[in-house]
């Protein structure tokens, strides 16, 4: 029997909600599990059947991971030095999330600021004066697309040679280089949208070049540049490989700090990992939701036209 238009529409609508909700669950479940686990007491981490919503919610994981409140006991499976009664060295080295947070913030912040400033100026030059040809703009993408693993060993040796290994500067420079392509492309897409006539109108009304950029162009691309900044912040904040191999102990970043839990010999500490993960992820999600409308710009490379 043929369906009427409105029946068809209702069927489609139901189908749509069904599929979307399934994917919503797939997306949300790991988030839910991460947050949930971070509040679970130790014995529920590995319980079977798994505990979905704990009745014994505790902030102990957060206190141990973030506030460095040293409640490790033998029962927790921590290695305690038999003679001194203190926590073993390895466990101690895990207790530095704030240092990692500070490093991550500084490194991602500086690298991103540099990339956006530099990329913005470059993008203006490309958009208005064609200082880099389109072909070269695409070649710039190489910097990001060639996997860093293939150069990381000699870079690390070279960094050791010139004293950049395990320094904030060393990581900042590499993050700057690898995020520059996205910064330029994204900033360019926003600058391209400011019509040239707007600048010419200002110019013929007597505004100098800098005045025009300051009063006309900048206000119009400001939100775009903020989006570019946040987008690149997300990328640098979550970078793992370079941070792992170019830092030893001084410039530990958050993803590396987290990975140290996984490497620990005393077994998995899911609750602690989750508590740290939540802390790492929340700023990113916050930032991402602010710029969600601009995200498409970040990687559409001029392929989406309005």
């Amino acid at each position: 029997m043929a369906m009427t238009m409105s029946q068809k529409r209702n069927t489609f609508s139901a189908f749509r909600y069904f599929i979307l909700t399934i994917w919503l669950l797939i997306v949300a479940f790991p988030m839910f599990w991460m947050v949930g686990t971070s509040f679970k007491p130790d014995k529920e981490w590995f319980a079977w059947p798994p505990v979905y919503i704990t009745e014994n919610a505790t902030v102990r994981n957060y206190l141990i991971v973030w506030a460095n409140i040293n409640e490790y006991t033998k029962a927790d499976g921590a290695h305690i030095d038999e003679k001194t009664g203190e926590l073993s060295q390895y466990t101690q080295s895990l207790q530095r999330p704030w240092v990692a947070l500070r490093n991550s913030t500084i490194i991602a912040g500086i690298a991103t600021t540099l990339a956006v400033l530099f990329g913005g100026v470059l993008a203006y030059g490309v958009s208005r004066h064609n200082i880099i040809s389109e072909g070269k703009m695409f070649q710039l993408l190489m910097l990001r697309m060639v996997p860093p693993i293939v150069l990381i060993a000699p870079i690390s040796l070279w960094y050791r040679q010139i004293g950049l290994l395990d320094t904030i500067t060393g990581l900042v420079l590499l993050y700057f280089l690898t995020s520059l392509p996205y910064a330029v492309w994204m900033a360019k897409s926003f600058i391209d949208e400011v019509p040239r006539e707007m600048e010419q109108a200002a110019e013929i009304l007597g505004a100098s070049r800098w005045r025009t950029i300051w009063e006309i162009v900048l206000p119009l691309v400001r939100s775009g540049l903020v989006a570019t900044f946040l987008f690149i912040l997300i990328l640098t904040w979550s970078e793992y490989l370079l941070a792992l191999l170019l830092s030893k102990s001084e410039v530990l970043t958050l993803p590396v700090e987290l990975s140290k839990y996984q490497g620990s010999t005393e077994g998995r500490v899911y609750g602690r990992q989750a508590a740290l993960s939540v802390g790492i992820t929340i700023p990113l999600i916050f930032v991402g939701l602010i710029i969600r409308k601009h995200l498409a710009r970040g990687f559409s490379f001029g392929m989406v036209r309005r």
Partner: protein
Amino acid sequence: MTAEQTIGENLPLTGRAASRAQGIRRFKWTVLTPFFALLIFILMPALIAQVFFSLNHFSIFDAGDDDGWRSYLNASEWIGLELFIEVFNDERFLNACIRSLLFASGSTLGCFIVGFGLALLMYRPFRGQALYYIFFILPMLTVPIVIAYTGEMILYQNGPLNDILSRITGMRIDAQFLYKKEIALTTIAFLEVWNWTPFSFIIMMAGLAALPQEPQEAAKILGASKWRIFWEIQLPLLRPVILLCLILRFLESMAEFPKTWGLLQGGPGSATETIPVYIFITTWQYFDISYGAALSYVVLILMVAIVWAGIYFLQREKKNLDEMYFARPDSE
């Protein structure tokens, strides 16, 4: 323009035009100099060192710890292309390549199909669209290493996934998603899909939303079915965006490291030993710097070729688009 003679090339620029051209040139080099300086200062020495290591037998254990490059020279022995020959005969490397290609193409396709599917369902406004959108982009905003570890909490044998599957099917499902050789790589590919579907989703949403409406309506009035409109109008118009999605995703998943390494370090056995993992193990666990360098060079050249091809396609699509949108170069 027929026989009209142009004189522009022969004339020197005068006055303002010249000074402006000079200004732009100065601007260009002021901006680009620090950039090139960085490339030369950081990447060039690395590339050169890589050549050196790959052509010499070098062991980090023979090199003193503090003497710097002099000790590297002392600890190395010229062996020419020997290592490269070894790379090409290295079955483990070949397997890593195959794994990487499988992983990259599988996860790229997965991301694309799911992302495009969701975008198709969502690009027209409906109740709750904004809310779904927000949720759907979340995975991309999650740190990959966090995904790896959270993935483990969910996927391990006594984890919630087995429990949920058991409850749904009514059977006791006891899958070792991570520690069974046959499925470990697939599992990681699924994590990659979970992580990066938002990328395809966002781009395809933007692409679909930006499609001009008139041609679709015109086709509808001409009697085309939804399916035909999709195949003959939407899909061809979306081609550049689709290619962008596939190419960028493929390149990035070829380099995927945090999840494969963070979860399984190449194991079980070598079931998840992709190219980056193999290089990592060679260089940072065996400390076979020389062989790692040779491997890296081969991969570098391979990847540059792939990236080059990808960039070439993207650039061509962009040019087509530019021509489509600014059809007449002579228009005013």
